């Protein structure tokens, strides 16, 4: 089992500095020359679940209630629950943990279907303007919150973590197959802001 390696769809052309094997995934904890931010972090290996039911209030994944309002996100420790619409929510893990997906039919493991990236640090929101019409900079957003729409030209779910200048960050999830082009697009857009690939530790530091 241990010899089988699972692959993230995201590949950064950067020198790995610290690497960890975890459940078959090869996780880069740190890259060389990550710079001072903003950072682009691959979170594709972390669990993500889809939850669909007519009555979402009946579910409390890992003890966290589903937000009532569409577009609302709720973070509990390293678990994030995002209300997508009347009958659907997504649950994202932002750190490795032992949570097993609930054995209820309403849940579907979507980690394999999706790629997940975080953009963290100063300049993140300015970068987002270059690849999306979603207005992450709107000070009226209560963070965290979920926005859905094109980002880097592909359909995405974007969770805005913070948008205050200097303490900015967001995570976005999209169809796995687009990962290569999305990474290229975001890195190209982020050149002027100093965006660099960064290891998973940057996410832990941020949260």
């Amino acid at each position, binding site marked *: 089992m241990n010899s089988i390696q699972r*692959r993230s769809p995201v590949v950064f052309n950067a020198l790995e500095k610290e690497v960890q094997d975890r459940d078959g995934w090869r996780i880069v904890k740190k890259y060389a020359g990550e710079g001072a931010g903003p950072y682009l972090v691959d979170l594709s290996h972390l669990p993500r679940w889809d939850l669909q039911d007519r009555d979402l209030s009946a579910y409390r994944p890992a003890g966290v209630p589903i937000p009532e309002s569409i577009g609302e996100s709720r973070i509990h420790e390293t678990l994030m629950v995002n209300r997508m619409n009347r009958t659907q929510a997504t649950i994202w893990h932002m750190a490795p943990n032992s949570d097993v997906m609930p054995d209820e039919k309403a849940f579907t493991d979507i980690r394999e279907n999706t790629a997940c990236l975080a953009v963290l640090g100063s300049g993140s929101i300015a970068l987002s303007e270059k690849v999306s019409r979603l207005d992450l900079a709107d000070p009226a957003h209560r963070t965290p919150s979920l926005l859905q729409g094109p980002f880097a030209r592909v359909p995405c779910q974007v969770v805005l973590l913070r948008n205050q200048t200097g303490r900015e960050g967001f995570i976005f999830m999209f169809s796995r197959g687009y990962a290569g082009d999305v990474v290229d697009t975001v890195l190209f857009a982020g050149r002027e802001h100093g965006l660099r690939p960064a290891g998973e530790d940057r996410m832990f530091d941020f949260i």
Partner: protein
Amino acid sequence: MKRRLSLPTRRVDLQRRIPFFYKKRTCYGVKGDTIATALYASGVRIFGRSLKYHRPRGLYSMDGECSNTMMTVDGVPNVRTETTLLREDMVIEEQNVLFSARNDLLGFMDRLDRFMPAGFYYESLHKPAILWPMAAKMVRKAAGLGHIDPGFRFSGICDEIYPAADVCVIGGGPAGMSAALAAAASGMRVILLEARPWLGGSFDYRLYAAGETMPLYEQAGELSSRVASNGGIRVFTRTAMVGGYNDNLVTAVTEGTPEDPFDYRYVEIRTKSVIVATGARERPLLFENNERPGVMQPDCALRLARTYGILPGRDAVFSVGHDFGLEAALDLSDLGVSVRAVADVRKDGHDPALLEEIHRRNIAFFPGWAAALAEGNKKVNSVRLSQIGTGRSRAFSCDLLAAAAGHTPACEPLALFCGRLAYNETTGYFLPGKYPPGVFAAGRVLGLEAPTSIRASGEWAGHEAAAFCGADCHAAAKDARKALDGLPGPHAGSNWIAHPGPGRKRFVCFDEDVTEKNVRQALARGFDVPELIKRFTAAGTGPGQGGISGHNLPLLVSALTKKNAAVPTTVRPPLRPVLLSAYAGNGREMTKKTPVHEAQAKQGAVFRRVGSWHRARYFSADLDVTEEVANVRSNVGILDASTLGCFRIFGPDALSALQRVYAGDMSAIRDGRIKYAAMCNHDGCVIDDGVVIRTGTNDYRFTTSTGRAGETGEWIRYHTRFEKWDFHLVNLTDGTGVINLAGPRARDVLEKITDADISNEAFSFGSWRAFRLAGGIPVTCMRLGFVGELSFELNIPASFMQAAWDMLLEAGRDMALRPFGVEAQNVLRLEKGHVILGQESEQRTNLLDLNLGFLWSRNKDIKPVGADALGQAESDPNRLTLTGIRMADTHAVPPDGSVIVNNAADRRVIGYIGTIRKSAAVGAVVGMALVEGPYTREGTRLAIYDGHSNMNVFQHATVVRMPFYDPEGERMRI
């Protein structure tokens, strides 16, 4: 040319020289120069030749309002040199010239204007008909602006940005800056767009401030500093608005500097409110040779001197109709230009302080006079001024004629937002009347000239815009309005057009060489309103987008027809010429790649786009894929089929939803078995096919074709929208890697990497099993036979795909396992008679046409989509029907899609080929075609139109039975 050093308004850095190439010689500008100012400083006066008459053209305006100074720069034609920043080593070329701009061998065209009246190309040279193609070629060769090499590729970097704002202020002059500051004070997010490289607008280069102590340029600097330090205002300089659309969508393009990471940036702003503060431009004065090099707008002359330190001429004559013209004459006189005379079309109403200064400097002043003629062959060398009404005239020698009839608002952005213009008797020009909610105007675009009024109007507009966005600043808006009402309003202006005369060389539109005479000709032909005249003469349709002709045309038409002035003609985006590259942004094509894309690339795969995916089509240079096909038929191959759509549907009513969209009976799916199924639209036409399996109670998985996956979710929801069914869908496409292990030795390979019993007895054709491969890789395996051989379709979580792919290749190494691509699959399934939707079908092809009627269950409780249409089509014998064909010639392979005709004399079209390939297994060229029912009988001879040769050459084929290969299907069931 030596530049003025000590000017507080100067914007160029004289210490930083920038070399560039012009006419194969090295010239120098300075940092901050535009191409046009650098050329002017280098002594260039003739920049190019005009479109039609090849008249010499020079610097006239400074904001690119006409095509006079368009040039080819670094291979890019029609670059507006007035606004394009000079960069090191630019190669600048004249355009629309034969030999040189100074000595253009086509200059004689100017004398042929009698043969080119308005709209001549609509009616001349069209008869006899044979003449026009030749004439059009010659006209196009002689006319037009720059030429682009069809092979030219723009090498610059273009990107894009999509900022959002509460208030977007268009125009960074004093009104715009005041508006931005007022709106930001109410907590609004403000974006300020300015086309020039700096803020300040008309204040930036002016000293004179009527009735105020602080010079205008200092006022601009003070406002600019406040804007820069305001965190609520984002400033985009060098960013010209190009479009305005519904719901206050503003588009603009930023021209990059060498320090920017882009050459052009497309800016798309979604804003709640818009303030148009684009100021005013000078309305051209019409007189004979009014576009001769040496004639320029006073604003242009003043900015050359004040902003760039370049004296526009030695001896100048001014012919103006506004106080700014007097101000410019005085300022240029102070800077060292010898002002020989100032004519003003106004007899009175001048600013007395300016008049006093003119008299104090002993400058000859002619109220009620205007330029009638500019003389000089290629450049102005004298000007004749005439008194309006009497015709008395005087000539002055000069090398500069600064001429303008007055100001006119630059209100095109307002027009894009459906603002209405109305003629104003006081100002003599058009002012904004009504504009939609959320759109406001400020500054000189409202006809204001007094600096205090301009600033106050900006503050008022800023408060109003903020209030519109919900800010609690209605009181501030009211106070600002009150303050504005107490200040001077729009100045009295002049609507004077031209002295009487034929107007043969009075140019209304420089871009299209349209003269006053042309307008008269159009009127004489019955085109009596500006919109019609614009179309007949082309006035205002050039790259200047009506900047020069825009407001003169309706005033001229009014003067000639003695009717009230009609409004200016319709304005459409883009307001400025924009490279298509800029609109395209970084132009990245977003495509999906499968989890083993890179691995296949290393194995020599040639990819083609299928839907949103890249798929490996070939694994060698042999496009007939002979070896790939043979290896599957005789040995074993693997195909990456990860692009197939894959969905989970679950919930109490999941079965009902499946029954609705699939033609077959989904309740008949047995545990462990696979059901092949098809979806139809309301016309009964097949839109998708795939397989369905039941994975649990009220829990199913189904596959779709590659191109259809993106729409399937919506398709199911749409066709169940009136039901209250409880079901849910999850798209698992990207997460499900699929490897088709196919060939007679497929089981031998698979057995090496799994402990599961995959014998035919335990795992038969048409069934599925979930088990694990070595290392614990979970798979859902289906026994399918799309390629007609023993096949295991392994559905694997995407993150394990690479490991599984490598494992299979390793396991099959001693069996010569090798990957095959989509083209090989295409041949294999063709031999087997299996269809690919979109290949063998089109939008009119129904389930029955494809011989798939067995997939339609007529007795379901829930009527499937398309059932009614299928019922009607059942009794139609003439529909196109899927038919196997075999070519008579074993080497002739017509292209897919070739037309099939009957063998009668009329050669009527009776169908077309879907797919046709040379089949080694069959030993012939075989294909599948859709053919009219009466022609599908076995043995029927068909003629196939050979699209590669002429209409009378046909190839022949015979209708044969399908499938071509293994008709009993034994090979799939081993």
